[in-house]
């Protein structure tokens, strides 16, 4: 029977030997996961960006799919619905709050443009949070509906492996459920790391899991960390008028181009965010009046200092959500350093029919679009007869700090490390966005650079843009780089005027020339 089922499935994969799907309910726990009698073609563990993309794609190819998603409440008790990090405690609420902060800036600009707006305009956290939270909830709902429409079975259970084809989980009400599948994709993502070695960190600090769900304003906030999460959060908190400090132990935005990263920080520092560089916290205490007292050490001098805050936000990195999966029961290998799941170029784990995508995977970008694309390509390979692999090169991304930083390709230091200084040419420009002129905004950090090979036609290795709407600017150029654009081709591309984006195609001054890279006038 099993062999026949396999053979039949081989014929275009559309034929299913099971006669009908069980309406509602769940397969009995008594059914074993013997080969050929499994509940699903595909089981996806994790209903985030990657997981949902896989599930929907497989369902579209006619497969029987189930998704299990479960959110362990944060130490502060925050929980959320279907959709994963991006929707609930990442990209989406972050961008909306970043937008709120940007609006604050535009309101300040408005009088310069002739608008008689009384200044200063106060910001109401509650109103913003409610609007953001409502939008996120609508997305949770939207995802539920989408799964239903595509006949993907959804279980809100915390799954763990029983064997390599079976997971078990406990549903509401305490009922234990067993689910088996021919193929399993692990897309459980990650969660913020807590510095548990710091006294008071767990009890008194919050993370990005909590900040977007706060009902009341976080008030005077200390953000600990130098990641994009830290800087983006500190950025919008400052933008809506809160007293915000960022504590960075060593370098900002590790892994990103460091010249650009320091300009991001410079901008934030000159626009109201306070920075404590080279410091590391040692203790957090709650004072009688409810405020938090943080003690830290200056890493160079060894001197100790304290400060009082309403909120402490830990943004020191993320850990993969693998601990409770019982991966050993399935035989799935993880990295001993990071506990992330190890995969090959086909997203395959150490177990032939188990795959992993997204933030939970070792060595992959922690980005929604890569998880989605990798997931879809994987499903196309499993059920759609494709052999296309995910290309993780030249993935564009943007850091949504107050002055946004968009990039694609290699950082300058990566390019130099790979090719040698003599073989790399960097074209750069300091530009001033037109909209900054009338409002008298400081454009000191508005900067763009293109890292190229020196040999003609000068292949573009990386593009870095610091300025308004960096995400919108960078996206189009990512296509160019994917197609192997050369500096020569960039030079032949006519700009759109007046935009900031055109500054990319107007890049002429190289770092090597030593000439002043400040743009003047229209050409």
């Amino acid at each position: 029977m099993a062999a026949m089922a396999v053979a039949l499935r081989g014929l275009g994969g559309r034929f299913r030997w099971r006669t009908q799907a069980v309406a509602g309910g769940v397969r009995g726990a008594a059914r074993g996961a013997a080969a050929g009698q499994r509940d699903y073609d595909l089981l996806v563990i994790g209903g985030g960006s990657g997981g949902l993309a896989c599930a929907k794609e497989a369902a579209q190819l006619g497969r029987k799919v189930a998704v299990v998603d479960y959110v362990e409440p944060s130490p502060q008790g925050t929980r959320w619905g279907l959709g994963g990090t991006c929707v609930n405690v990442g990209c989406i609420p972050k961008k909306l709050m970043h937008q709120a902060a940007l609006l604050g800036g535009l309101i300040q600009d408005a009088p310069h443009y002739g608008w008689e707006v009384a200044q200063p305009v106060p910001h109401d956290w509650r109103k913003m949070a409610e609007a953001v939270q409502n939008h996120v909830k609508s997305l949770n709902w939207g995802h539920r509906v989408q799964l239903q429409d595509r006949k993907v079975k959804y279980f809100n259970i915390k799954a763990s492996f029983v064997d390599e084809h079976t997971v078990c989980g406990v549903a509401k009400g305490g009922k234990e459920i067993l689910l088996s599948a021919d193929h399993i994709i692990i897309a459980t993502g990650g969660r913020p790391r807590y510095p548990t070695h710091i006294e008071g960190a767990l009890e008194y600090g919050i993370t990005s899991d909590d900040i977007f769900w706060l009902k009341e304003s976080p008030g005077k906030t200390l953000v600990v960390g130098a990641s994009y999460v830290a800087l983006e959060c500190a950025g919008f908190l400052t933008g809506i008028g809160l007293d915000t400090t960022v504590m960075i132990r060593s370098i900002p935005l590790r892994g990103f181009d460091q010249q650009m990263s320091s300009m991001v920080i410079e901008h934030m520092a000159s626009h109201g965010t306070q920075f404590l560089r080279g410091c590391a916290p040692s203790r957090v205490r709650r004072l009688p009046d409810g405020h938090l007292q943080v003690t830290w050490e200056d890493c160079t001098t060894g001197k100790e200092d304290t400060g009082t805050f309403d909120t402490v936000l830990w943004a020191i990195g993320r850990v993969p959500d693998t601990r409770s999966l019982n991966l050993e029961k399935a035989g799935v290998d993880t990295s001993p350093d990071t506990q992330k799941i190890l995969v090959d170029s086909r997203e395959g784990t150490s177990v032939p029919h188990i795959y992993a995508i997204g933030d939970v995977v070792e060595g992959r970008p922690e980005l929604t679009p890569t998880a989605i694309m990798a997931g879809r390509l994987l499903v196309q390979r499993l059920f759609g007869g494709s052999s296309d692999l995910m290309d993780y090169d030249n993935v564009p991304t943007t850091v949504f700090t107050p002055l946004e930083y968009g990039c694609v390709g290699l950082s300058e230091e990566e390019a130099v490390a790979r090719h040698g200084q003599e073989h790399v040419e960097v074209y750069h420009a300091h530009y001033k966005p037109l909209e900054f002129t009338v409002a008298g905004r400081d454009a000191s950090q508005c900067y763009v650079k293109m890292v190229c090979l020196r040999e003609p036609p000068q292949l573009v290795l990386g593009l870095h843009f610091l300025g308004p709407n960096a995400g919108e600017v960078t996206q189009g150029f990512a296509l160019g780089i994917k197609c192997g654009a050369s500096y020569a081709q960039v030079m032949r591309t006519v700009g759109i005027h007046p935009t900031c984006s055109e500054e990319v195609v107007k890049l002429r001054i190289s770092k090597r020339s030593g000439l002043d890279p400040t743009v003047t006038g229209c050409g």
Partner: protein
Amino acid sequence: MALLTRALSARAGPSWRRAARASPGFQLPLLEPAAVTRALSRAMACRQEPQPQGPPPAAGAVASYDYLVIGGGSGGLASARRAAELGARAAVVESHKLGGTCVSTAVCSVRGRRFVSAFRSTACARSYGFPSCEGKFNWRVIKEKRDAYVSRLNTIYQNNLTKSHIEIIRGHAAFTSDPKPTIEVSGKKYTAPHILIATGGVPSIPHESQIPGASLGITSDGFFQLEELPSRSVIVGAGYIAVEIAGILSALGSKTSLMIRHDKVKEVKKTSSGLEVSMVTAVPGSLPVMTMIPDVDCLLWAIGRDPNSKGLSLDKLGIQTDDKGHIIVDEFQNTNVKGIYAVGDVCGKALLTPVAIAAGRKLAHRLFEHKEDSKLDYNNIPTVVFSHPPIGTVGLTEDEAIHKYGEENVKIYSTSFTPMYHAVTKRKTKCVMKMVCANKEEK
């Protein structure tokens, strides 16, 4: 030779460029040292070309340059500056302010989009948590800022030319009947083996004879001179200028009408309470009807632009134009007369600043660096209409693609969504995208 050695050792720094210019006998292009030798021999060869013969000019009668540029706008300035960088002795003739249309009357003068962004922001701000954000608009403030910014740009352009040792000739140029192509500006004559016409265009206004009272309306030139926000505006036209201006005025609070067929405007009268605009309108399926809009304080013609070629005395050299006056050029920007070229709006093709700049520069490289094949590719030029919401476009329209490839070979991908910005606002605007692909490879 001493210059060559200096060039090879000093690299492409500013001092090197100054040294090059200090020696009038040499034309040293901005090249990597390895290529300097080649360039130098080319430059020397160019210099040895015999000067065109003609009657010797009377003392001081005709000033001679390597490159004469008529028109100090986007195209003219870019071409002159690039030519100067390549070693040419250049002069720019300009009768108004430096910077041209782009700077003074349109693009760079803090386009209205910015006003409206600020407006939109204050309106949406409430949804993002700024409860007390109410805004009233004061036109004077933005006009002052705009005017100041434009003045600053005019000065910047002037400085750029001075820094590049480009002579600025103030006045209006016209070709003469001299055997060598020569122009005359305010009684003085100038000549060059290469003359570029980059005089741009002006907004069209209908003739009084076609539409009585047409001159009571203004154009985009006048729009930026307005001292107050008009309370009732009528914009006539259907191109991007009409759409953009109508969008700005409407969003800022002027009651605005957009008249798409200008030949349907019949008459404009002046009354004590403003202009009276009479027009023929037709609801599809019904008979045309005469309507009248009273109390208009701003009638703006945005019905197209005419090339600025009439006052140049092009006929003296027989320079060909089309029936609208656009100067006819080939793909290398050559007119039908040797040594005379044209770029930008005056040619009537792709009326965009970056296009004029790019074409002007390509021309400079062709003429003064002897890059014989240097020309602008006019395909796939991206552009934006700053309407609300704006439209960004590059490549063929759907109709153009179908016409070129045949309907069966064209595939359209499209999407429509509400940007997340509007997730929390009352006002929602859709974002629509369309990708037109052709043939099997879906290019």
